């Protein structure tokens, strides 16, 4: 097979451990004493001659009757029920689980059914299955290259004399377009491989053809069948560690280091975690538009965007739910522009507005452009940190020392320590006072609760959905539309 591109990611087999586990299961199945019970299946090849000249499809009958020509050839296979039994016994699992495990083995191409090769399922009855040859095992993860697929399709084309399945025809044409420069090689190899196969016994030839077919069913599944080899997005190197066979000093040193680091990680008890989860869910439940509905109405259903207008980032009258959320945590308050504005006003009254200004300036530094970093750092220093500055913030000496050290080589994260200190100060001190203040209480009282739109009497007669006109059309239609009625009003029932 052609060497395709190297597999992406560091260690592919470490990223797909299920494949090597399946391989181990299959290998243990081969054990002569403790493996699966094998039976020998007689294979009869029936040739049904066609009346029309020139065509002679060949059909396979596994133990079927009505032969015109019988070729007895005992070949080893095992029944589905035997496999399930063996799995139950070896791994002490229930029948349902054994069935599922067996189906996984079949779907990944380690076993294939003889009677109906296209349906990759494990039937717990007498249907015979056979093992796939190690060359075609998926756990090796040798790339199934386009050249190989092209050769396989060419061989199939020759054998079936042009009668390929639809999706295979499509693939064939696609491949011809993609690798047309090596098409000579494809044709040559296809012909030669078929000729080489002729040197084998008929039974062996069929078995090998079945094996190859199964391999390509797994690696290029027909449309409608999900591909078992799909992987999610590439993960970082955290999970990919090479399985090393020779365990030398370096290996053990690395293991010790890894375990030491793992011990030092902070862990939270699951009871604490789960409590936090529950608290979050119960607190945010009424605020979630999917769980508790949204007022005035769901824009996607009622076709009116009042909801978005009312909850715009900067709106004069915030809704009650929004004001409630400011009380959940300091972060919610700061993330909401309206909340932040009100908090700034409150701080002004308390004469500690410079804290919030400093925090905002630090955020701008962190997320701003790289070119502005030196200028911004200087500005922040002049305004907030220099002794005798106009808006001096109160930072403890230790943090101030560290910040001044870092200011010699300014980068965008140099003010992180100071920012964190001020943030915690505001959170512990100003924020609780804000929540208890008259200002906040007033905001809560003033907050609007948008009324829910009444359901129409006849809900079936919904307003016909109109797609919003493009801005180009809108500009030309402006004078005409002004004469007409309002565009999106709730009109007739």
């Amino acid at each position: 097979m052609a060497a395709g591109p190297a597999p992406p990611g560091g260690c592919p087999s470490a990223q797909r451990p299920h494949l090597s586990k399946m391989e181990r299961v299959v290998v243990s199945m081969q054990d002569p004493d403790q493996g699966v019970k094998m039976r020998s299946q007689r294979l009869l090849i029936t040739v049904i001659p066609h009346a029309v000249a020139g065509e002679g499809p060949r059909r396979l009958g596994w133990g079927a009757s009505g032969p015109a020509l019988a070729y007895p050839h005992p070949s080893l296979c095992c029944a589905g029920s035997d496999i399930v039994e063996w799995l139950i016994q070896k791994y002490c699992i229930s029948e349902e689980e054994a069935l599922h495990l067996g189906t996984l083995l079949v779907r990944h191409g380690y076993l294939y059914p003889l009677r109906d090769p296209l349906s990759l399922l494990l039937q717990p009855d007498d249907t015979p299955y056979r093992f796939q040859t190690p060359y075609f095992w998926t756990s090796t993860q040798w790339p199934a290259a386009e050249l190989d697929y092209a050769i396989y399709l060419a061989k199939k084309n020759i054998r079936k004399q042009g009668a390929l399945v639809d999706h295979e025809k499509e693939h064939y044409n696609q491949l011809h377009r993609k690798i047309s420069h090596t098409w000579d090689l494809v044709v040559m190899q296809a012909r030669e491989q078929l000729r080489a196969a002729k040197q084998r016994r008929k039974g062996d030839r069929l078995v090998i053809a079945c094996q190859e077919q199964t391999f390509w069913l797994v690696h290029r599944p027909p449309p409608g069948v999900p591909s078992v080899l799909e992987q999610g997005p590439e993960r970082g190197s955290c999970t990919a560690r090479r399985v090393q066979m020779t365990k030398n000093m370096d290996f053990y040193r690395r293991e010790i280091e890894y375990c030491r680091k793992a011990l030092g990680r902070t862990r939270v008890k699951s009871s604490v975690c789960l409590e936090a989860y529950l608290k979050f869910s119960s607190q945010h439940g009424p605020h979630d538009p999917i769980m508790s509905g949204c007022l005035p109405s769901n824009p996607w259903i009622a076709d009116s965007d009042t909801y978005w207008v009312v909850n715009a980032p900067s709106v004069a009258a915030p809704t009650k739910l929004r004001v409630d959320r400011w009380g959940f945590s300091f972060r919610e308050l700061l993330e909401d522009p309206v909340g932040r504005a009100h908090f700034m006003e409150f701080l002004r009254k308390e004469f500690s507005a410079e804290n919030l200004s400093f925090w905002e300036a630090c955020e701008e530094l962190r997320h701003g452009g790289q070119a502005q970093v030196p200028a911004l750092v200087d500005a922040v220093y002049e305004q907030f940190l220099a002794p005798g500055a106009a808006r001096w913030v109160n930072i403890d000496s230790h943090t101030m020392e560290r910040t001044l050290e870092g200011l010699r080589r300014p980068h965008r994260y140099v003010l992180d320590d100071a920012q964190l200190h001020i943030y915690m100060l505001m959170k512990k001190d100003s924020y609780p006072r804000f929540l208890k203040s008259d200002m906040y209480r007033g905001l809560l009282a003033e907050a609007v609760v948008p009324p829910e739109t009444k359901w129409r009497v006849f809900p079936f007669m919904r307003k016909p959905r109109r797609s919003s006109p493009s801005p180009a059309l809108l500009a030309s239609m402006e004078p005409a539309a002004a004469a007409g009625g309002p565009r999106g009003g709730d009109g007739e029932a």
Partner: protein
Amino acid sequence: MAREECKALLDALNKATACYHHLVLTVGSSADSQNLREELQKTRQKAQELAVAARAQLTAALRDRGLGAEERAEFERLWVAFSGCLDLLEADMRRALALGTAFPLHAPRRPLVHTGVTGGAAGIAARALSVRSLRHEAERDFDVNDLRELEREVLQVGEMIHDMEMKVNVPRWTVQARQAAGAELLSGAGASSVGGVSTEGRRRPCDLSKALAAAVFSAVLLVAVALAVCVAKLS
């Protein structure tokens, strides 16, 4: 002529690669045996010899500055096929090494997989070496030594490929293959040797229906002749 020689070498290499592929398919399965490993070794050594010879010829031809455009295009086409073939061979050799290491013949700790293939593959190896039959003459621990040799040969082939790429610069996308899509269905014509398997496959059912038609026709003819004789006799 150089071109015919190159083509012949390429065909032989193609044949050897295909046979090697078929042999590697059964490594680790129930058909694996000492004989198979020996056949693998012989086939791949033959393939390597052919590859070295073909490479020398093709490199000499392509580095010749005084080659006409048409000739050059022809050689480039052969070159692309040759390097593709060599890639296939190298990949198969690597896989044979991996499988051979994973399934050692004389250590029962990892039994062979029962795949249902039981026959010998001596015919395939004989085909690759273009001999009539093959003699097996290996000692007991053949497979272990063979694996070490195989490792070295894999590296050699890898180096050869690398050398090839460095010495001759053939942009693959400019090469126009001679075979079109579906060319394999045409029997015999084309770059490879005559006697396509498609004709063989089609011949048998054609023969049957043709034989049937011939039998029916002759029966009808006999009946007609008999009737004519009767009519002639009666009248």
